[in-house]
């Protein structure tokens, strides 16, 4: 167990021409990972969430030592391990596709990392039995690992990380990608259980927000090599610091409405919406384009007042319902306000929603966030 610290870590993949020489455009090469300071607390469950190519796997490989960062330092318990190879670090990693040693039995697979480190036979037996029990692999211990299903193989991969008593953190790189949906949740619950029992630091990479939000107590949302926001799942949901976070998390994502500032209120598609005075003051200082964000959960749908046309009710937008999606316990209503489109989650069955009908939308002021240049004000 240990504390992981990244100090100004950054990485660019060197662009090489086909002749194996460094291309002159190397200076222009984009950061795969922009300079980053991060601390992973001992025993925490972290998720790195972001779309493909956002740098989350790069970050993971830097931590495990498979990749050496082009800049910055990595400390484990205060010790600089930036240059140390994976073997010399107390890090375990589970990959997207289950990696198992085909010719070995499940027990040998689990014992492999310990044997390589010269652990004595008795301890190996104990650890393997213990971890097999935890992962419910005991009945398969004597079987050839290659004969098992994908989710069992992934358990073995995880087990190879867990048997080591010295691991500072277990890194998981989209480990549920190839697992059948009906066993995914089982494995996910298993991971939570393991985290609770062993209090081992978990760093979990995924592009699936449900996985990230259910597994982690700290989620780091990444895009284009930058960590845009770090916070609890609640914080990311309730107050996204960046429009990308708002849109990426949530289903459907946050409504983002371009707007302009006019004396203490914002103008959206020609309609006035008053905002708090101090927010208006901060917004006035910004030169970048303003966007108003509100989650579909925090918009209330009302029938249009009879005398519409003028905004008789403050804090409401007039719109037209386009589409109604019925699903499970809530309906998702899509409405147009001028040229913009809003999603609204309607949980109350009493509210009528018919496509083509006019409506009045109430944006809960305490849940409405104003962004300038993508950043929350």
């Amino acid at each position, binding site marked *: 167990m240990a504390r992981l610290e990244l100090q100004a870590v950054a990485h660019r993949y060197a662009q090489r021409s086909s*002749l*194996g020489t460094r291309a002159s455009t190397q200076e222009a090469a984009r950061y795969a990972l922009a300079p980053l300071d991060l601390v992973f607390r001992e025993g925490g469950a972290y998720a790195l969430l972001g779309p493909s190519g956002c740098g989350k796997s790069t970050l993971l490989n830097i931590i*495990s*030592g*498979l990749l050496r960062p082009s800049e910055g330092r990595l400390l484990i318990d205060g010790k600089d391990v930036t240059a140390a*190879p*994976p*073997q010399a670090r107390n*890090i*375990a*990693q589970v*990959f*997207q*596709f289950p*990696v198992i*040693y*085909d*010719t*070995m039995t499940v027990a040998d697979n689990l014992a*492999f*990392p310990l044997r*390589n*480190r010269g652990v004595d036979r008795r301890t190996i037996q104990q650890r393997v039995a213990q971890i097999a029990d935890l992962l419910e692999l005991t009945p398969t211990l004597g079987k*050839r690992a290659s004969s098992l299903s994908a989710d069992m193989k992934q358990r073995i*991969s995880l087990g*190879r*990380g867990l048997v080591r008593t010295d691991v500072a953190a277990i890194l998981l790189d989209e480990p549920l990608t190839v697992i059948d949906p009906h066993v995914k949740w089982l494995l996910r619950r298993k991971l939570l259980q393991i985290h609770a029992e062993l209090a081992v630091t978990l760093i979990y990479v995924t592009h699936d927000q449900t996985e990230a939000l259910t597994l982690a107590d700290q989620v780091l949302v990444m895009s284009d090599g930058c960590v845009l926001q770090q916070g609890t799942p609640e914080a990311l949901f309730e107050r996204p610091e960046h429009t990308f976070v708002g849109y990426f998390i949530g289903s459907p994502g946050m409504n983002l409405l371009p707007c302009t500032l006019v004396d203490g209120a914002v103008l959206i598609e020609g309609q006035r919406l008053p905002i708090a005075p101090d927010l208006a003051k901060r917004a006035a200082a910004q030169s970048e384009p303003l966007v108003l964000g509100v989650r579909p959960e925090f918009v209330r749908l009302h029938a249009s007042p009879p005398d519409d046309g003028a905004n008789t009710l403050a804090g409401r937008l007039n719109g037209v319902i386009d589409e109604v999606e019925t699903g499970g316990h809530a309906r998702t209503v899509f409405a147009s306000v001028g040229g913009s489109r809003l999603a609204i989650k309607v949980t109350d069955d009493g509210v009528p929603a018919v496509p083509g009908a006019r409506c009045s939308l109430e944006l809960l002021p305490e849940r409405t966030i104003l962004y300038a240049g993508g950043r929350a004000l």
Partner: protein
Amino acid sequence: MQKPTDNRAWLLVLPVLVTVAFSAVIPLMTVVNYSVQDILGPHQRTFVGREWYQHVLRDPELHGAFVRQIGFSLSVLALELPLGIGIALALPRSGVSSSLCLVVLALPLLVPWNVVGTIWQIFCRGDIGIAGRAIHALGIDYNYTADATDAWLTVIVMDVWHWSPLIALLCYAGLRAIPEAYYQAASIDGASAWATFRFIELPKLRGVLTIGILLRFMDSFMIYTEPFVLTGGGPGNATTFLSQYLARLAVGQFDLGPAAAFSLIYFLIILLLSYVFYTAMNRQEQT
């Protein structure tokens, strides 16, 4: 539901049947035909039954050739497999150097077989060959035309030179197909280079190695051209393998009956041994 049947569909199979008949079935039946008759002229033939088979199987020359053949095939397999795997592991993984290595490696495979024999025949001569003279210069008495051991060594080294690249290329392709994650997992698990080879690379090479072993076994078991050009089967019968024995029977002595009988036995031996190899390697995989 009743499936429609139309016997005219058999006509579509006819071209294949005809081709296979001419390329395989008819020649094979001719051989079977020869093997049970004593043919002295176009109108003088008598049915002799199993006689040729018994005759051939009791021939001490055949026994000698068979033992030499097994020895040769096992030796080249034992040398070419580790060497091929070793070369494949040592090859660079990408870039220009890897393409260059592959081309150089493939060169022996592109040389016609009788030319391979000729190259080594000249290469190893004591009077004008580089290798022959170099060995002499080291003070070793070496003459592949007179000494049986020298002849054996030369034939084996020639075959290893000729065919190790095939194993190497197969293994190289097999190694390239191993996903990077396996190596990464191994390094995180603290595996040594040997453990990585033993538990990742070797198991993943099983498929290509099965093909390689089968190909090399069948080919080496049928080897004819290279030793024929290099040593002509000599000195004495030291490097006379099965196919050369067969050629001598059929073309040298015109004993068509025994030659035909032996051809069939030869064919069955190769079939049987290949089957044994194949099942042995597959069984290992299943347990």
